[in-house]
């Protein structure tokens, strides 16, 4: 898994250059032409480089310094290049292996544990760099010494005795911009704006979903109940039927109001078609929940013919995996809702491994929760009428998020039209 992810992360730029080592060269490297010589050696050896840091001395006697990331197609090619440039004084910066300390208390890390980011990270073990699997921010890193593999581990999953990486020695992080320069949304570099040309972004989103439908990756939709309130449920159903969404993460509210609409034609008691308040409409959502609970589950309700339309119905019919998370304000909840927060995190974590694109629509807390779990190389587009939702997501570390400030319904309408246009063009 980790190896594949590493390769995916690089495929956008230099698919062949997966073996990486940082070297440093110091001294009068400019006057002596040592720096250009080292760089020439790297490219002549078939590798590529990125200068991570350069400090130029002020006076003639002041030495300069450069930290250079060397990349090559294979470990053997990298070794050859490193041996070549070592002769010119370029030596690996890695000071040594990472330090491992066994967890002394279940559910906690040892003091000084290495706290992860959502960016691609490697640790050094037995003088070799290992990719970290299950990359996720705000976790620790554990190592399986037998298989020489490393993975992120959340605090709550730590068992006593688990070896945990402590300190920063023997760890390295690859900032996203270096591994994925041709991000599909690279032109949208600033995080959030109401001034962005939405049509261009929507076309990019449609292209991404269209490619994923063809097998390139998996698309995750994280949705809030406003999708139903704004009358956009049918548009989501179009996407589900078209095979454009592979997974749905939502809360009790989206599923409840979707089912309410299916059973009673209202959402929060408001008639979706006319916008008028239905008689005793406020009871509809609770009656809807009750009906599903009586059936046993959403799946059972679909199988028994109780539920015959809507987002949840389409998920069942189109075998779209859904994960419903509970909250303390939930009515019911629906029988499919998982009410244990940590269990929800585990289920979502297990489900996102193959996700390559995530669309977050009209939900703040759920977007942040999923954003916390996704590695930085998964493209995320957050659609919300409220700019603060996207800002919050970015502020919490999901900096790869592209924000689109717009009403949900016109966005989804344009998105459906765009994927249909792509379908027509492809046929």
């Amino acid at each position, binding site marked *: 898994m980790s190896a594949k992810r590493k390769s995916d992360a690089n495929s956008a730029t230099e698919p062949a250059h997966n073996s990486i080592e940082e070297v440093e060269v*110091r*001294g*009068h490297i400019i*006057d*002596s*032409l*040592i720096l*250009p*010589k080292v760089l020439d050696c790297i490219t002549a050896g078939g590798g590529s480089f990125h200068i991570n840091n350069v400090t130029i001395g002020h006076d*003639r*006697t002041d*030495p300069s310094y450069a930290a250079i990331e060397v990349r090559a197609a294979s470990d053997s090619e990298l070794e050859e290049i490193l041996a070549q440039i070592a*002769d*010119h*004084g370029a*030596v690996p910066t890695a000071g040594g292996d990472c330090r491992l300390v066994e967890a002394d208390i279940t559910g906690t890390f040892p003091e000084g544990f290495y706290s992860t980011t959502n960016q691609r990270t490697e640790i050094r073990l037995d003088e070799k760099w290992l990719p970290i699997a299950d990359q996720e921010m705000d976790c620790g890193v554990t190592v399986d010494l037998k298989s020489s593999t490393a993975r992120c581990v959340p605090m709550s999953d730590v068992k006593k005795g688990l070896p945990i990486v402590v300190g920063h020695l023997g760890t390295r992080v690859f900032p996203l911009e270096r591994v994925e320069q041709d991000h599909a949304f690279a032109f949208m570099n600033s995080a959030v704006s109401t001034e962005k040309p939405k049509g261009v972004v929507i076309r990019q989103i449609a292209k991404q979903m269209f490619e994923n439908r063809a097998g390139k990756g998996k698309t995750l939709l994280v949705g809030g109940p406003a999708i139903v309130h704004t009358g956009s449920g049918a548009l989501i159903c179009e996407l589900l039927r078209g095979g454009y969404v592979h997974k749905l993460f939502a809360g009790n509210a989206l599923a409840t109001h979707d089912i309410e609409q299916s059973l009673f034609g209202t959402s929060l008691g408001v008639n979706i078609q006319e916008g008028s308040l239905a008689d005793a409409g406020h009871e509809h959502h609770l009656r809807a929940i009750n009906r599903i609970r009586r059936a046993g589950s959403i799946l059972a309700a679909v199988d028994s013919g109780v539920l015959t339309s809507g987002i949840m119905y389409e998920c069942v019919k189109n075998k779209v995996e859904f994960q419903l998370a509970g909250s303390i304000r939930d009515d019911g909840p629906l029988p499919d809702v998982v009410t244990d927060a940590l269990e929800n995190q585990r289920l979502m974590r297990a489900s996102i491994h193959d996700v390559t694109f995530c669309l977050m629509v009209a939900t703040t807390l759920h977007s942040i929760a999923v954003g916390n779990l996704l590695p930085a190389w998964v493209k995320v587009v957050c659609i919300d009428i409220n700019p603060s939702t996207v800002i919050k997501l970015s502020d919490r570390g999901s900096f790869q998020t592209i924000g689109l400030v717009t009403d949900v319904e016109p966005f989804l309408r344009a998105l459906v039209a765009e994927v249909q246009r792509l379908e027509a063009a492809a046929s």
Partner: protein
Amino acid sequence: MSSSTHILMCPPDHYGIHYEINPWMSTERQTDHGEAVKQWQKLRELLVTTGATIDEVPPVEGLPDLVFTANAAVIFQRQAVLARFKHSQRQGEESHFRRCLESHGLEVIETPGDFSFEGAGDALFCGETLFAGYRMRSDATGQQEIGALLGVRVLPLELVDPYYYHLDTCFCPLSPNEAIYFPGAFDEYGRRVLEEHVPHLIPVEEIEARRFACNAVVVGKTVVTNHGCPCLHADLQDRGYAPVETPLDEFVKAGGSAKCLTLRLDGEEATDWKN
């Protein structure tokens, strides 16, 4: 010349080709010991006539290359950065050179890291800059560390021809802005560095470079080389130098010549810090 000119030499009592650590050496092609002694004596006398004081490191049996005192250390003011020989055959020389340098009142400094460094054979001042040969005998990283230790600018030059395995076999500073060099011993980068940082470069033809023309001892305006370097000598005369030749073929057999047989304890003529 100046009475303060101090040159360290080592009598060739135990000199011979006992091993092969450069392309010049062949144990099949032994030295003529008597001839070697004569040539060494003649060089010594020549240097004395320039006004130099000759100090000697006592020869040691089993250390044939101890005669090549240039490799003992690089001298900077009253400091001597001691060699750390690449080949085990020469590592035994280090302690003898250390004792000798200390006895001459120099502060002997060990190289700061674990790398090989062969003294003035690979580190020559021209002006305020220390030009440093690397790849064959000395490590580039180490040269930079020595520069940092002494607080001087170091310009490492890669040596690309194994026949010119030390910098002093292909580069010889004459004054703070003049030097002799053999372009073929350097790569394009090295040649560009020399061209940019030494205002007057005197190139040596390959045939004379093979005669160790660049391995010259400079005392004031006197430049002593092996015999058989007429073109260089003409160029030196044009530039106001007094070139002198003396046969050193017995030492060429081991890959050394005039410069290799000497170490300026008071610092090379071309250093900026003594001018």
